[in-house]
């Protein structure tokens, strides 16, 4: 009897760490790994074309240049400079994101030459009338969500994905939960399903056309479908550049007026 128990005991001892990893811990571990995989790029610039389509198919276009500065131990600093529609040309938005703490945000209005600090509560509101909320486009810090690992499955193009449920931990989110698909090899986001506060499946976001830029992967296109309204927004990205030498001086509210 004793001789048979020993291997079973050994098996139990060795399998304990694996069994102890709850779906929550595994979800968090993968979110951290994904965050590490996409860090160290220092700064990034890119051009974005945003195409808004309503249910009848009529189209509206926005063009935005973006600059992002990676910040250690805090959320990133971001700058958005609007080129289209023409009436908002020259408008610039500066955001310092802080994970669970409210973001700091300034808006530059070129007609008045006025820099306005704006309240940060509006996370769930639409960005420029699109299907993207401010919180969908903000810096995705690990600490902003609670995680739960659901499963691993095929997710198109021969890729396998981790499927993770994440629940916003920050205040004023428009979502009760999100389900995200991350590819198992490079931790690239493939798809996110957004569920509104009542639990209904509100929107789905899909990434397409990944290209590698040195160490980092970026998608050419992000497509957000709103299932309740039938409206959709496509983001087309181009001119990705990394490590361009931007510093905190470029992300100063006083610099907003001279970016154009």
């Amino acid at each position, binding site marked *: 009897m004793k001789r048979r128990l020993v291997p079973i005991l050994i098996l139990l001892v060795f399998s304990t760490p694996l069994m102890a990893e709850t779906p929550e811990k595994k979800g968090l571990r993968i979110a951290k790994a994904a965050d590490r995989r996409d860090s160290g790029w220092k700064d990034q610039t890119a051009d974005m074309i945003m195409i808004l389509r309503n249910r009848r198919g009529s189209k509206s276009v926005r063009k935005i240049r973006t600059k992002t500065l990676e910040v250690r131990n805090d959320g990133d600093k971001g700058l958005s400079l609007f080129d289209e529609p023409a009436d908002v040309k020259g408008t610039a938005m500066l955001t310092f994101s802080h994970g669970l703490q409210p973001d700091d945000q300034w808006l530059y209005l070129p007609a008045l030459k006025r820099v306005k600090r704006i309240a940060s509560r*509006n996370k769930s509101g639409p960005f420029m009338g699109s299907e993207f909320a401010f919180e969908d486009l903000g810096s995705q810090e690990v600490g902003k969500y609670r995680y739960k690992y659901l499963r691993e499955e095929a997710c198109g193009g021969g890729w396998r994905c981790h499927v993770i449920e994440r629940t916003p931990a920050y205040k004023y989110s428009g979502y009760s939960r999100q389900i995200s698909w991350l590819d198992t090899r490079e931790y690239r986001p493939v798809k996110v399903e957004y569920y509104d506060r009542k639990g209904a499946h509100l929107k789905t976001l899909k990434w397409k056309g990944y290209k590698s830029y040195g160490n980092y992967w970026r998608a050419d296109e992000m497509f957000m479908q709103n299932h309740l309204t039938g409206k959709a927004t496509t983001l087309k990205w181009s001119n990705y550049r990394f490590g361009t030498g931007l510093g905190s001086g470029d992300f100063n509210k006083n610099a907003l007026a*001279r970016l154009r």
Partner: protein
Amino acid sequence: MRLIKRLLPAFSMAVASAAYPVEWSGNLAVEVRTFPSTAQWPEQKDNGLSLSFQPELRHRWNDGDQAFTFIPFVRVDSMDEERTHADIRELKYLHVADGWEVRAGIDKVFWGVTESQHLVDIVNQTDLIENIDGEDKLGQPMVRVTRVLEDGAIDLFLLPWFRERTFPGAEGRLRTPLVVDTDQARYESDAEQKHLDYALRWNQTIGAVDAALSWFDGTARDPELLPGTKGSESILIPYYPQLRQAGLEFQYTGEAWLWKLEAVHRDTEQEDYRAAVGGFEYTFVGIHDTPLDLGVLSEYHYDSRRLAANSPLQDDLFIGTRLTFNDTQSSEVLAGGIFDLDHAGKSFRVEASRRIGQSYKLSLEGQLFSDIASHDPLAAFAADDFIRIELTRYF
């Protein structure tokens, strides 16, 4: 050979502009203003059609560290010949060095945080015939040196030439009972328009607070209006005293609250006084699970001269609401009233705008004056309720 000589400059310009493209943008607007009440003075007209054009030329080189900007403005107005006017809003050169910025030429700056009055804002003269809200400004010749700090900046302004305020002509509405004759402007300083004014401003962000302290020493932007004559006609003459102004701007930004304060201490040969405007804006986000945001604003206006003040905002309360639709057309409405707590006077204002298609914008503005007492500084405007509709084409 002659052909080459003629083509060469054009060719080199084409090459230069290909390397450093010149950016063109701007807007063209048609405006209709209608005044439904009978005018107080016989020459005044009731309706006006107006066309304005503001092209903007920008040229950046050296990765944006050097830039040139030219923004002229012209308006042609059917109602008031004084409102037909042109200005250079900006004509400036910018040089950015490590931690420093220098701008030289004609430029525009904005100081302030509050919504219902811009008290601290003093660098640029108000282009008053454009709109009574004081948000249209004339281009100011200046040399501006900026020292960029971590989360702040210090600005030094040298202002070598003074711009006179614009005033409506005899046919225009929203004017004083007697017409202001800007050709007879007088100054306290013998240097008149050539007086060298200067200003300093330090602004800093400290957590949730954005604050600024400023100092201005020079010709007052807001003139006193003195009785005078032009031939046999009685008119008003603008008199520009020398002014020293110390200013404070403060804003606390919470998750839904904004708390704001602007305060000035002004000192001239004639008087020494304090004025302030302060209040809050609270925003309800996504009301009833729609994308709509509703803001509630209130600001109190104070002037230590009280009833002796030439300002209509000496003891007044502003209450307003801002509705942001967050739709594709960026529709928004701002409506509010200013209640004079000394006089019974009230004025109401609505501003609404909406984008049409990709490059047009329709704006609507309505102003109503009510219960204005004869001794209120707003008495001259008592019959000048108006509706203004503007269609702007941006390019």
